[in-house]
């Protein structure tokens, strides 16, 4: 097979569709970071929030047999982890990077423990399955775009809608304006009567909910069951996507698509060119993250990382 044939069989509609699906948790994770960081709180805990929600969603849906209950529980656990990050870094003014590291460790420990106690036989009642594929009538028939964008499972669509909503909220509503003000210059925002603490708490928790949705994607839409450390760095890749996208929803979405494509290509190449060692292909998304986080000089929100003291 010459190189053109390989490329032709790699860059197919299926690959791009796979790219959109695997970009979903990255995009959602980066929006989780966006809410937190735009209001001035560094969030390296996306990974832990995702992992916790993935486990909780699988646990609850397995034991209740209801995917809806799984979604609710997953969102709740993501939100709770967000609240923990908020309390530790806003109320107790702990270094936000350490707070994030604590959450990542805690999530690894708690999910690992619960996995061993409840999510393996003989106790585990079995997975409640995954969300069905929901092709969107008419739109799915559009050539090329149809199969790439409109033949997915529900969280993919949700992610696409959320992307637009966040753009609107961030740049065209009072809520978004307050969020940005608090992230850029909390003292000035406070002077204008904006409650800095409330704004930060609310947005970090919203971020937790979005990371939760990313985690739910992993267990209830992609794999169908929980595995130890199954996030595999997606939360950190999401953070890199956010930085590459310069803290804007469309930018982060584009970066997430890039990672999704890298991942999809990696999967396709593994089957098509077994002579390339799989380990090198598996490395690709992580190397890409380093390159992507390096080539664009980031301009973060000005007050990021600084605890606010009303004083």
């Amino acid at each position, binding site marked *: 097979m010459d190189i053109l044939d390989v490329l032709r069989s790699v860059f197919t509609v299926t690959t791009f569709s796979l790219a959109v699906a695997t970009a979903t948790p990255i995009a959602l994770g980066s929006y989780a970071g966006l809410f937190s960081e735009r209001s001035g709180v560094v969030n390296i805990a996306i990974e832990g929030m995702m992992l916790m929600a993935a486990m909780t969603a699988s646990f609850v849906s397995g034991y209740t047999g209801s995917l809806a209950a799984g979604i609710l529980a997953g969102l709740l656990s993501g939100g709770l982890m967000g609240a923990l990050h908020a309390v530790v870094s806003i109320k*107790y003014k702990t270094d936000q990077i350490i707070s994030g590291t604590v959450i990542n460790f*805690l999530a690894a420990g*708690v999910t*690992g423990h619960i996995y*061993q106690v409840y999510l393996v036989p003989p106790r585990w009642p079995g997975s409640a399955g995954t969300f069905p594929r929901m092709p969107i009538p008419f739109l799915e028939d559009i050539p090329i775009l149809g199969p790439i964008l409109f033949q997915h499972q529900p969280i993919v669509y949700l992610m696409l809608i959320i992307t637009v909503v966040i753009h609107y909220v961030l740049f065209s509503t009072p809520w978004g304006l307050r969020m940005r003000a608090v992230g850029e210059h909390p003292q000035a925002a406070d002077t204008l009567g904006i409650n800095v603490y409330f704004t930060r708490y609310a947005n970090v928790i919203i971020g937790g909910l979005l990371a939760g949705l990313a985690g739910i994607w992993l267990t209830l839409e992609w794999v169908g069951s929980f595995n130890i450390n199954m996030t595999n760095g997606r939360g950190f890749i999401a953070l890199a996507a956010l930085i590459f996208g310069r803290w804007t929803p469309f930018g982060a979405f584009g970066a997430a698509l890039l990672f999704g494509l890298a991942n999809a290509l990696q999967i396709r190449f593994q089957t098509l060119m077994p002579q390339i*060692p799989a380990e090198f292909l598996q490395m690709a998304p992580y*190397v890409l993250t380093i390159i992507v986080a390096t080539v664009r000089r980031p301009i973060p929100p000005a007050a*990021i990382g600084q605890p606010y003291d009303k004083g």
Partner: protein
Amino acid sequence: MAPIDRQQRRASLLRRAWRGIQIPLLAIIISLIIAAIAIIVTADSVPVGLQKVGRGYWGILDGAILRSSGRINTLVAMTPLILTGLAVAIPFRAGLFNIGAEGQFVMGALVGTVVAIYVPLPPVIHALVVLLFGFIGGGLWGFIPGFLRARLGSHEVINTIMLNFVAIFFVNFMVRRPIKDPNPSTVQTLPILDTAELPRLFGTRLHVGFFIAILLAFAAWYFLFKTTWGFSLRTTGLNPNAAEYAGISSKRQYVISMVLAGGLAGVAGIIEVQGLTRVLTEGFAAGYGFDAIAVSLLAVNNPIGIIPAALIFGVLRIGGDFLQIRAGLSIHIVSIFNALILLFVAAPAIIRSVFRVKVETVREDQASLSSGWGG
């Protein structure tokens, strides 16, 4: 007058020592209590849970401290924890957060192992050269994020985490293909040459590496607090702008601290091979680089303090196996400990509000980490 003076000084020294350890001590106690609650909640019933906590915690004490084989195992487990702990503490002092000790650990082990297997040298010299190559392997892996931070401002937190994944995939590739033991039934390297091994002591698993680690902890303390380089490094961590104003290049400090850190983590990795495993296997790292973060923070990033902090985590690591054997508990309980200890040490205000005591903070010269992603 003089004896009273001395007495007073001794009293104030004691008070200072107590101040230094009360936060870590209270943090450990609260963490044990919370983990116990987690165990009880996830047990079949409260009595069963209580029994598990009793058996598990007694197992940790018995398995890691009371029996002599346990004590030896604890010292052996301390070795990589001290070295990777230093690998976190030194960049911390320069204002960088190195989450990449895990990757630096395996890269050091890989480079050192290649020299230990394929480059025959006379005894002693061989072992030392292998150690040096362990340092180089890890140091290179630390250099990358240090350089990227210094030159291009890309954040070391993301880069070190990504390099962990890259290192682990790379070592897996090497161990599965180019340097694999030809014997098809195993996935590991050939054993290292005898000349490259670190001698074991008293016929136990304890090896010379333990003393190398202690020595390097003291050397790191001397470097940080008694040399000009160490001073420049700490000044950069406290206030990079002031350091620049005083003629200290903060960029240089970023690179130096990350190379040293990576090197020490690499030495930790190669010592595990030279002293214990004698081969390199898949999944070699086993989380030392992550425990290191808790070790370093528990020690308030003080190289000497890292020795007792590593002891505590060594006990938990060895004891963790006994949690499983004696009480049927998962080893993940130990990760929960780690997270909680980290939380309470980093946020002493929480302890203060729980115990309602006036706990004085000892963060005399902590650098702030999350000053932004822009560098």
